[in-house]
């Protein structure tokens, strides 16, 4: 096991190098010269030269790349171009709200989706099943934007049941006042595709021989569903869950933008608007690292829930 983990971590090195190369090509080559943006209205040859020197843009490209590699290795991405804050402190203050929002959406959404999916899979072919599938198909076709715009308008502005937007410094206040509406909308947006996917996982398992054997030996239906089928259907469910974990760090970008939640997603959007390259680069590196770690974790969890899986 340990040897496996060490090997997998070692394999992340070239991938991380590739991500760095991609970002470098994008922002230092395709992106053009950012000093014109930074100089703003005080455009003078000296100002431009000064900015270039400050950012290291007057150095040859290989040397610039080495600086970037050093930044990644020390996880010190310099200062934000727009606010002059150190990028690390900026991101440090953004990660909390994102984790709170996306974590609660993921938790509530998964529990609800698994419950409903198991129920309709058990009742497959019935009117309930067909109705749920139909509603889910229609619900999936509506853009996430529409849910958020409509929810914010009717539930917060017209209904007045929730604050329209905002975020506070106290976690309790956030949980009680500011979180519920984004949480609700996030769960609604994610629920339909999850139900459809989990239902197909459950239905596939229900057709297997071991289910028939369990019925033949007289087990009750709840025991079959919860003990036998659920455990076997967990593998695709865990995969899709682990795949969505990196998004946990990035937060629900649209929700954060609409509700003014100071998280990573909103930060990305603002950084793109302001051409704040260091922030985008830093967030991308962090998310890529998280994705690779979660992929490794997924494989280890496979091993734990399914003894048949061989790690190699």
């Amino acid at each position, binding site marked *: 096991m340990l040897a496996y983990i060490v090997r997998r971590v070692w394999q992340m090195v070239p991938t991380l190098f590739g991500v760095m190369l991609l970002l470098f090509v994008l922002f230092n080559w395709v992106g053009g010269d950012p000093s014109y943006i930074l100089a703003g209205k005080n455009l003078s040859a000296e100002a431009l030269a000064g900015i270039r020197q400050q950012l290291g843009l007057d150095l040859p490209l290989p040397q610039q790349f080495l600086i970037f590699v050093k930044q990644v290795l020390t996880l010190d991405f310099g200062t934000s171009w727009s606010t002059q804050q150190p990028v690390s402190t900026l991101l440090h203050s953004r990660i909390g709200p994102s984790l709170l929002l996306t974590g609660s959406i993921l938790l509530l959404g998964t529990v609800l989706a698994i419950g409903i999916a198991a129920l309709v899979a058990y009742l497959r072919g019935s009117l309930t099943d067909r109705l749920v599938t139909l509603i889910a*198909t229609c619900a999936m076709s*509506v853009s996430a934007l529409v849910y958020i715009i409509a929810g914010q308008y009717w539930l917060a502005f017209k209904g007045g049941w929730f604050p329209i937007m905002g975020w506070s410094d106290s976690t309790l206040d956030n949980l009680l006042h500011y979180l519920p509406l984004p949480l609700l909308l996030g769960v609604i947006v994610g629920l339909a595709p999850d139900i459809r996917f989990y239902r197909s996982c459950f239905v596939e398992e229900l057709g297997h021989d071991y289910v028939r054997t369990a019925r033949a030996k007289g087990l009750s239906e709840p025991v079959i569903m919860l003990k036998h089928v659920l455990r076997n259907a967990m593998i695709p469910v865990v995969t899709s869950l682990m795949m969505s974990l990196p998004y946990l760090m990035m937060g629900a970008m649209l929700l954060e933008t609409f509700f003014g939640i100071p998280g990573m997603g909103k930060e990305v*959007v603002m950084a793109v608007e302001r051409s704040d390259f260091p922030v985008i680069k830093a967030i991308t590196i962090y998310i890529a690292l998280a994705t690779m770690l979660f992929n490794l974790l997924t494989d280890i969890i496979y091993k734990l829930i399914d003894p048949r899986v061989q790690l190699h």
Partner: protein
Amino acid sequence: MPHSASPPPAAPHPHNSLTRIGWRRLRRDRVGFAALCIVGAYLLLALAAWSGLLASHWQDEVAHPYAPPTLFAGTAPHHLELSAADIDAADRRATSAAAQDGSGATGLSADEDPLAADLAAAEQQSAQYRGAEQARADSLPLGADQRGRDVLQKLLQGSATSLQVGIAGALLALAIGTVLGALSGYFGGLLDDALMWGYSVFTSVPDMLLLLAFAAVSGRGIGTVVLVMAFTSWTGTFRLMRAEFIKHKGRDYVRAADAIGAGHGRRMFHHILPNVGHLLLVQFSMLTVALIKYEAILSFLGFGVGVTQVSWGAMLAEAPAELLQGYWWQMLAVTLCMSLLVTAFSLLADSLRDALDPKVK
């Protein structure tokens, strides 16, 4: 021993290719066929809008701002009509009154006001371009937006843009994914390692973040959005095609092609590709749906199509401000139009998957 009776000459066997079987199955699948018709209708409308036959005047301000849909002409929220022309007129009245006092709007005389000359010149210039005031409608089939543009025309033009972005992006992504996947699966070895490395790099960053990173360094406009989307969404096709080419390259028919002297390129794209083409068709419909949704989000955030173009996302971007004032029609029209297409495309993908599955007889 010679056969006494030669076998009866083979009847002219109907050409039963997978495409034809699939087409027959799709015709029988009522839901799938209806979905195909809807997608086809959208494509025709988009083509018409794109070629200028339809909705080419979507930018004309043909109605009063926020004119309601015809059916709801009486129920629209009351609003004070104050167009730019009204404000101009009020301004002009104020200025001319002030001018009679001998002082400009600023309280300065024409000689003292440093902007007076510029203003007069600007006035003349704008008078030159002021066209005849056209009659504005009180209501339109689907209502009007803030500037009095017809929502129906905008919707048609927006559908054309969104479809164009979705389809062009999906085709380009499919082309990149297929070529790289074919090379990787067919040749294996070092090339495969290198391409797999690229794959792992692109998949280690979530789609939306990658899209935004690309959008940060590129400009706006349809062409850019298509390129950005293709560069970020080729990975799924790549993995699918790589697996298929690994599976197919050792099959007998490919070895037979090798034996009659077909080159690598011919074996890859003339022999193997038609055998995996049905997977590409399914992949294409799924990618198009995904890209149409991405385009809406990108345009909403302002990183999508340019300001002189209209798409579903750009129209949705106007929705929050409109809703606040009670003008719901543009958002409803876009939502319905987009949902119908997305549902039809998803159902079509499901039906295609069933119809083209070679294992089902």
